[in-house]
């Protein structure tokens, strides 16, 4: 406990908020990266599909945004925005740890679901290449992965709302 106390509450809380956005963004970057890479293959054959490829590439990008929402919400609840920094430094380790934990569902859910969704999006680009009329089915497949990012967001938000 004294080990955690040496950091102080604020640092733990900010670490949690930072990881929520940071890991979600890493996941989204990887996810959109995987999908984008698959997209270049199709676009080099058929540039007219760029709009649809972009939509599919964008789908794993929402996790980063959700992470940003949790981050923003966490620091707003802490009172970091426009609050007095010196009083914030006095945050107890227990409170800080609570913020940290509340941010974790989004951090982990965002990171891993975005990568998984990126792979599905890359597969959906294959659908777009081979069966262009059925590409919206790929959209649905991506949506199913997306739900777990939403649940992570929901869990983090429901916890943060209690602070």
């Amino acid at each position, binding site marked *: 406990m004294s080990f955690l106390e040496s950091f102080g509450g604020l640092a733990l809380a900010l670490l949690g908020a930072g990881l929520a956005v940071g890991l979600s963004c890493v996941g989204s970057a990887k996810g959109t990266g995987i999908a984008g890479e698959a997209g270049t293959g199709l676009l080099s054959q058929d540039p007219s599909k760029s709009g649809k490829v972009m*939509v599919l590439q*964008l*789908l794993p*990008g*929402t996790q980063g*945004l*959700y992470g*940003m*929402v949790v981050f*923003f*919400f966490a620091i*707003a609840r802490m009172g970091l*925005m426009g609050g007095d920094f010196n009083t914030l430094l006095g945050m107890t380790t227990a409170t800080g740890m609570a913020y940290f934990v509340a941010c974790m569902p989004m951090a982990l859910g965002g990171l891993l679901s975005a990568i998984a969704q990126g792979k599905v999006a890359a597969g959906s680009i294959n659908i777009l290449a081979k069966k262009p009329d059925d590409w*919206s*089915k790929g*959209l*649905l497949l*991506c*949506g*199913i992965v*997306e*739900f777990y990012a*939403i*649940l992570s*967001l*929901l869990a983090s*938000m*429901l916890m943060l*709302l209690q602070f």
Partner: protein
Amino acid sequence: MAIVRMKKLSLLATRSQKDEILHELMRLGCVEVREQDEILSDAGMADVLTRESSDAVEWRTKKTALSEAIKLLDRYVPKKTPMLTPRPELGEAQFLDEAELESALSAAREIIALDERMRSDTAEENRQQLLIEALTPWRGFELPLETGGTRYVSMLLGTVPAAADLGALSTALTEALPESEVFEISSDENLRYLSVFCLRSGEDAAMPVLRDYGFAAPAFGAVTGSAQENIKAAQAALEKLAADKAACRSQLEQQAGNRDMIKVCFDRINTRVDVEEAAERLLKTEKAVLLEGWVSVPEIPAMEKTLSGFDCAYELTEPAEEEYGDVPVDLRNGKIVRPMNMVTDMYSLPAYGSVDPNPLMAPFFIVFYGMMMADMGYGLIMMLLSLIVVTKAKPQGATMRYMMPLMGLCGVSTFIWGALTGGFFGDLIPQLIRLFNPESTFALPALFSPLDDAVAVLIGSLILGVIQVFTGMIVSMYMKIKRGETMSALCGEGAWFLVFIIAGAGFAMGQIKIALIAAVVVLVVTQGYGKKGFGIITGIFGSLYNGITGYFSDILSYSRLMALMLAGAVVAQVFNQLGAMTGNVVTFIIVALIGNALNFALNILGCYVHDMRLQCLEFFGRFYEDGGKPFRPLKIKTQYVNVVKK
């Protein structure tokens, strides 16, 4: 409003009127001509009947030529059509008039020929350019390049690498063959260009030395005349080619005037191809043809009226139940429900003889969409966008025709939910007011807010989910009872209804234990229905497990309604706040606009996908019988013009 009834049509007509009949049927657009393989597999029939022949191949070739010409015109002489331009309209009689076809085809052929000429010109240009490049270093050499020497003297032209030591080469050559001389004509960073003169009889002695220094033949190949002359000729050829290309281009520009005509004729030929392909499915004897197909019941009177003008006999039969798999499915609904086709088409059409899901789904789809998006500002944009596109561009394509009205309907719902939650581009207005007056606590009136009443909204979404799942179960029961499977309906959905009622009552009265026992008893009694022996026990446990997990996860899935509502609202608020942090009205508006546009774009897609998932998995899963084949009647299908009936 539901799945349109179909009847089987068998039509015998004289062969001479075949084309006319097919054309008339195409104008009506209510008959799908089907393949008749099973008749031909009967040996007795196959003696009399053979497949009708057609000119489909010839027309398809013409169609390819026109589409190629359209593509070429769009590439060489691109025409900017402003967005939201509706397709030009054409009367039906005018559309079916094929007088223009020949001139369109000849224009198309000319365009294709011009393109080929331009391409061969470009290839020739490249060749000449390469020649010029190869000859330029030899410019200073005035003898004709093919000279090769005199009777006693050999002249060798060639290159050595730039790094080669010319002095050493010269010395080595003189040692090997005193009667020789090397001249450097020019050099660049890679090569030195040399002419070597030696005694013809000593050439064999000179060659090994030259080779040691990397002496290689020049790049220009067989050329007659001096380098200078050849370069001049190539330049003249280049000028000629450029002029020819310019001429082609201006001719293509002239042809651009025919673009609209070619496009109309493409559509004409396309309908012609359809007619010919339908003709291929007919069977013929010497004097008669047999057409088999499906006709939609509401159009039968019109078809009978048309056919009365021909020498033909026909029979309409109701499809038998075992044929339902072959009957094509057409969904017809009113204006509000029709856009739902977008969802059903994407999923899979309902089987003939089952229920049209669109009217059942429409209220849920629209309400759910609005709930997830829930913002007055976004709703307004959707309504406006839909209104403008529908009235201005009159979209005809399969997706746009449904997508735009659907967006408008969802926009209305989004606006209403936005009014309930007090969202207008998130919290744009309160933030804006706070910029001027930091003390203001103004907020749009709201019945509830996804942030403060998160749990209440979550419960509300689950209740909506229960309602939709129950609706699905009722439909399924209705379908089973209609087919005479009353017991199956009662033991399946009926038992689960009872379980839900018992569970609800138990919770309400605090008698959870008794309710639980009662529910298990009900399920144990009913779930073995239709199974035998040991199958009863596995049936009971199987459906207990599948049922409980299935209903639970399905209903919990509706939590996304709340989650997306919250996510959308919070993202908008975050961007508004980021804008407000700049403390300046102009930057606030810029940041808030960009952020809201991003949020809008993500949400409009996200809400659609999630709404569709709820319909396709949670709702359709309860009752839907898919696998219907779409009804593809012979009708006028166009890409570039709208054909209006007059």
